[in-house]
């Protein structure tokens, strides 16, 4: 058993962190997220150069064939550095392509950093249930089209290609009948409404009106791929959240040691010390679960994967809420200004908590696994 990064994992994380410290600091990030584009071509180039787009892509498609455990250390750094580029959207899309099969050329281009992806999965009514799909597939298998409205598509306005979930048959919340399709962002029948999200990233509403689309796999059979890919993505979000929490916790600890009131550092007040101890415990428990999720996110045992990923989302989500809220509280007024990174970690943690299932969703899913009822 080993909880340390391997040497190449450590090197990559270190390189990423050095780049963030040098070129993606708080002020640089602020300019990027408030720019009209909402992303930075230079930053993207750097992520590609570091090998991050190639990391999760299989070696056969020019990638490094990294697993969720490799992604763990990358996502942790991106969370720490509040990197707002559409990287997660792209690698989540790459994971879908890899699991669905049949898009090897596209995967190569993703690995090379030439193509950005986004996953259009949620709809207005679906909340956290990704099987709740009203969008429809029409046309023959070799000339399919998609119609429907997808909401809150992270990186949807920045992507070159969209991966869309839509229904080939079945009732609106059936797991049977779901298809995944590939849609070119420049195609006809597509309206993308790009906007900012609460964490400074971009998300879009996307309307598909008979948009030409390529089926990924057989029609109506995509649920296992969709679930496996989003579990993998959920595990990555756990790692990112741990990175963000770690940094936020550190900033709060510094603040408690330097901010003085009543003639002493406020960190000398026992009530605040115990709060910090509680935050520390949350953080360590969350870190443990994020590691476990990374270890199981690409497991072949689907129930074990579901169980561990949902457990991690619950535990990390609870920690993110507590650490986020309390870090802001302990910063006092400074914690709720746009001017310190504290609030931005808090906002990112909040956004993560609303992405790919909230705590209650995953708690219900965890308790819904057959193994839960075995005493």
């Amino acid at each position, binding site marked *: 058993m080993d909880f340390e990064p391997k040497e190449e994992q450590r090197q990559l994380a270190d390189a990423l962190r050095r780049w963030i410290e040098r070129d993606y600091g708080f002020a640089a990030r602020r300019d990027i997220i408030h720019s009209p584009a909402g992303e930075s071509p230079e930053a993207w180039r750097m992520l590609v150069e570091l090998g991050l787009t190639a990391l999760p892509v299989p070696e056969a498609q020019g990638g490094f064939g990294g697993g969720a455990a490799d992604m763990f250390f990358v996502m942790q750094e991106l969370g720490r550095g509040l990197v707002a580029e559409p990287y997660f959207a792209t690698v989540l899309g790459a994971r879908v392509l890899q699991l669905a099969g049949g898009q090897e050329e596209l995967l190569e281009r993703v690995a090379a950093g030439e193509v950005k992806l986004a996953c259009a999965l949620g709809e207005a009514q679906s909340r956290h*249930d990704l099987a709740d799909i009203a969008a429809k597939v029409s046309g023959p298998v070799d000339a399919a089209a998609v119609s429907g409205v997808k909401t*809150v598509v992270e990186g949807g306005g920045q992507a070159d290609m969209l991966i869309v979930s839509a229904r080939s048959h079945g009732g609106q919340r059936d797991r049977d009948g779901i298809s995944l399709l590939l849609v070119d962002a420049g195609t006809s029948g597509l309206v993308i409404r790009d906007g900012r999200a*609460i964490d400074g990233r971009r998300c879009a509403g996307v309307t598909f009106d008979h948009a030409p689309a390529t089926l990924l796999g057989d029609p109506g059979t995509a649920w296992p791929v969709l679930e496996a890919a989003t579990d993998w993505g959920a595990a990555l979000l756990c790692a990112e959240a741990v990175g963000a929490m770690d940094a936020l916790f550190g900033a709060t600890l510094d603040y408690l040691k330097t901010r003085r009131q009543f003639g002493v550092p406020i960190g000398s007040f026992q009530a605040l010390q115990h709060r910090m101890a509680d935050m520390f415990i949350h953080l360590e428990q969350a870190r443990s679960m994020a590691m476990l999720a990374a270890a199981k996110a690409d497991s072949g045992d689907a129930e074990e994967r579901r169980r561990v990923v949902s457990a991690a989302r619950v535990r990390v989500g609870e920690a993110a809420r507590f650490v986020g809220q309390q870090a802001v509280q302990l910063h006092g007024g400074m914690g709720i200004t746009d001017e310190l990174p504290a609030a931005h970690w808090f906002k990112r943690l*909040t956004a993560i908590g609303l992405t790919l299932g909230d705590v209650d969703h995953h708690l219900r899913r965890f308790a819904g696994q057959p193994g839960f009822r075995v005493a």
Partner: protein
Amino acid sequence: MDLNYSPEDDAFRQQVRDFLAANLPPDLRRKVRGHLRLGKDDYVRWHRIVAAQGWAAPGWPVEYGGTGWNAVQRHIWDEECALAGAPPILPFGVNMVAPVIMAFGSAAQKAHFLPRILHCDDWWCQGYSEPGAGSDLASLATTAVRDGGHYVVNGQKTWTTLAQHADMIFCLVRTDPAARKQDGISFLLIDMKSPGITVRPIVMLDEEHEVNEVFFDNVRVPVENLVGKENQGWTYAKFLLGHERTGIAAVGRSKRELRFLKALALRQQLGGRPLLDDPVFAAKIAQVEIELMALEVTVLRTIAQEDRAPGPQASLLKIKGTEVQQALAELMVEAAGPAALPFDSALLEGRHGIAHDSADEMQAAPLAAYYFNYRKTSIYGGSNEIQKNIIARMILGL
């Protein structure tokens, strides 16, 4: 023990409701209920409507323009205004500086300022906190040095709410640097148009410009604008802290937000049924609703001690009131789910930026900003940690 409102109270409530139904402008009501941002005009417009009715300052003595209502009636007024979605009457003039002027101000100050506060001719803001003096307010460093008929003020205030709109600021300033820290403080009224004042916005985490830094660079303030005696300002500030504070529990506002939350959870779906019917989510809402019921009774118990100042009991109301408000805001974000992710500042300001797909989206869009904004409530007005210190010391004797 009798926990019912009297028939007179019920009649009074009806009178208030009739007034609100007839006079609260629908656009203001819509903004307030929809968690949109209020501009200066919104506040002033509503204040003047209420002032025209003679109800702008229910807590004041009748001779200054108060209503003569008892504590229960004042509570009913607050509650009904909040339930209806009326903008708040901002406290800085009516509830903060006015009581100090009444108690300690000169005849000229009373004659000049009180009517202007009542009718919202002046917009007031509060100059207490400083970068180095937050929870430890008495360590403030802004100085006022007597120079003939003026004080010359230098220093900086911060977290000054809506100072960008303000005509006047009431400030705690240090007039005797040699004295023990609470003893050398004075209470000054300063015209915001005075040369040497600079207001710098502090953008908050919800990207709203709600608070400011206010810099004083050799600002000359006429000595007539000193309230009471020099170096007695701390006493006046403490007097204010012990004043009417049951409103801080915000029971009426939280009742309105609870309704919003339930309506949202009825529209949102989980497994094909309204989210409100999910046992786990219903239990969370029920828990907040029950906490709010308890808080309302606790407020009424405090009020029932008719016109005795609630004193340290107010700390309990502040803590619970803000906890309930924060819990409601958080549950709204949770109910909205991913729909709470988009941030649409144009919509928040009442403009229509992005084309929204549905009314639901428009209702969800402000919620995360509202949740973020409300993190302030456990920090401002004496953080909830400070309130617990007060309970421990003043009530429990620890």
